[in-house]
């Protein structure tokens, strides 16, 4: 017979091991799950990106990386410093943040709304789902000519293209989550006589929240990626514009500064949504919790 032995810390004190301690002692205990991940370790997530940067630095220093292909991290830092000293990076970031932010907010709202319409009624699904799938399948670049004709070349067009890009991951994930909502909760909602609005608020939305948040995580990066496309049109600032410009003249360091900014924003955005997720889904007892 296999016998596993576990010895937990006992309270310090005069009482020997035979005598029970004076009061119940609730100490945090180390998680030793055999399956599934261990307890989260703070900052461990930073390991991957740090290793990536370390490998990059090593390859650059060792000469394995042609600096014209991928400049060394310090070169990129220096370039970033120059761009900051110029005020260019700040200006471009501010412009892009505004565009991406506006597009993100509107796009997430639109995606959520469409997902609710399509997820909760057949006729809504019939009308909404196909067009969204088509939109999703169509390259943003190819929509630009239409967007120019219909919405001009100003901020409006840019925000609309971002909204359309952001909308789809939110829609797809929220819609799938709604469709996967446990039918037992819908039954419950019916028996307690929830109105449609209350059903959406109390059951549909919280139940689909995990899916929505996954969609949101994708939407955050998509809003940034769309900048590369929209800031090629009638823009004179923005991080996408900066990168297109730099690509024209092969300014690899500037491109890589842009990429690093994208990467950092991606990590930050993801981190932010995960923080929201942890709070909003604190009720969940799941593998990752």
């Amino acid at each position, binding site marked *: 017979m296999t016998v596993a032995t576990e010895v937990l810390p006992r309270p310090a004190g005069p009482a020997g091991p035979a005598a029970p301690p004076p009061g119940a002692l609730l100490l945090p205990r180390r998680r030793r799950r055999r399956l599934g991940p261990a307890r989260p370790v703070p900052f461990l997530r930073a390991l991957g990106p740090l290793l990536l940067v370390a490998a990059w630095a090593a390859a650059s220093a060792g000469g394995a990386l042609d600096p014209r292909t991928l400049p060394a991290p310090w070169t990129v830092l220096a370039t970033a410093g120059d761009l900051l000293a110029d005020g260019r990076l700040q200006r471009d970031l501010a412009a892009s943040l505004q565009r991406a932010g506006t597009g993100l907010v509107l796009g997430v709202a639109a995606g959520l709304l469409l997902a609710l319409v399509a997820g909760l009624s057949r006729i809504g699904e019939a009308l909404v789902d196909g067009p969204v799938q088509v939109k999703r399948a169509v390259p943003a670049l190819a929509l630009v000519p239409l967007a*120019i*004709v219909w919405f001009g070349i100003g901020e409006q067009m840019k925000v609309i293209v971002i909204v359309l890009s952001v909308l789809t991951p939110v829609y797809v994930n929220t819609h799938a989550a709604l469709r996967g909502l446990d039918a037992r909760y819908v039954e419950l909602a019916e028996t307690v006589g929830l109105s449609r609005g209350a059903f959406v608020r109390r059951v549909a939305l919280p139940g689909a929240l995990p899916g929505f948040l996954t969609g949101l995580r994708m939407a955050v990066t998509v809003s940034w990626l769309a900048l590369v496309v929209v800031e090629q049109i009638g823009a004179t600032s923005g991080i996408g514009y900066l990168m297109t410009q730099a690509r024209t003249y*092969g300014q690899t360091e500037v491109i890589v500064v842009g990429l690093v900014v994208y990467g950092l924003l991606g990590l930050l955005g993801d981190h932010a949504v995960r923080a929201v997720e942890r709070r909003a889904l604190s009720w969940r007892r799941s593998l990752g919790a």
Partner: protein
Amino acid sequence: EGPAPVAADAPLPTDVPPGTRLVVADQSESLQTVLRASGELDDLPFEVEFANFTGGPAILEAFRAGAADVAPVGDTPPIQALVAGEDVPIVLARQVDPRSTRLAVAPGAGVDGLDDLRGKRLAYAPGTAQQAIVLRALEAAGLTTGDVELVELQLADFPDAVRTGQVDVAPLLEPSVTRFLEAVGDEGGSVLPAEDTAALSTGLTFVYARRAVLQDEARAAAVRALVERTVRAYAWVNEHPEEWVQEYYVESQGLSAEDGRRIVASQGEVVFPALDEALVARQQATIDLIDAAGELPRPVRAADGFDLRFGPVVARSARAAGARVVTAGR
């Protein structure tokens, strides 16, 4: 850093050893098609691989990666290469009718000549020949970039932008010029007279090659052979415009024959500017123009971007094929 100066007198090798291979970064399959259509790909003394690219920046990236050796391009990508510190000298220049680029004016924009450009919105695409054209138009009108609104767009978006009045003026090529006039000609859309804008464009396109390739005996000889054949091929185009339209625009690019003819007609006769100091000066003028507009990240020297050893090769081949060799003016 910057590229090492060209040893202008170093002899250009002629022997192509067997097994020599060149990768050509083509654009829209143009070089590939002209060589094949004119029969110049037959009994080629070296192996060639054509890889198709879209846009100058992508080709530059391919050069940088050593994934391409030679490429045909417009007149501004070599400038970008210089700015980027890439050593890719020009080995062949070709010129079409500069009047092939027209300035289209949106309906109701109120532009009848270059003098009316002040305060207007101009379509602008950095890194393209059209960039220089717009800047030259401003120069000709005695304006600076501050006197107008430059609207940065992708080249492909120019026609839509000017047709719908998102910009007032945009340089267009065929077949867009004709389509533009068909679409909004009766609403007041127009193109400025060809004579007024003839001086804005150089009509130049180049073939350039990586320096490392030119420093390699075998591949330099192959590039030389490629230059000779390219010159002959375009001379063939001059003689066989209809076949060219069919082979290239219709077969390869999927345009209508009508559109193809329009393009070929607008381009006129292909001539070969001598690859000499005059051409270098002409290119330097373009560089200075862009630099003066504050659009170059750093100033560069046009002379660094030519391999003049190819000058005699081009001239000889052109004459032999019955094509005109011209001196670049300015």
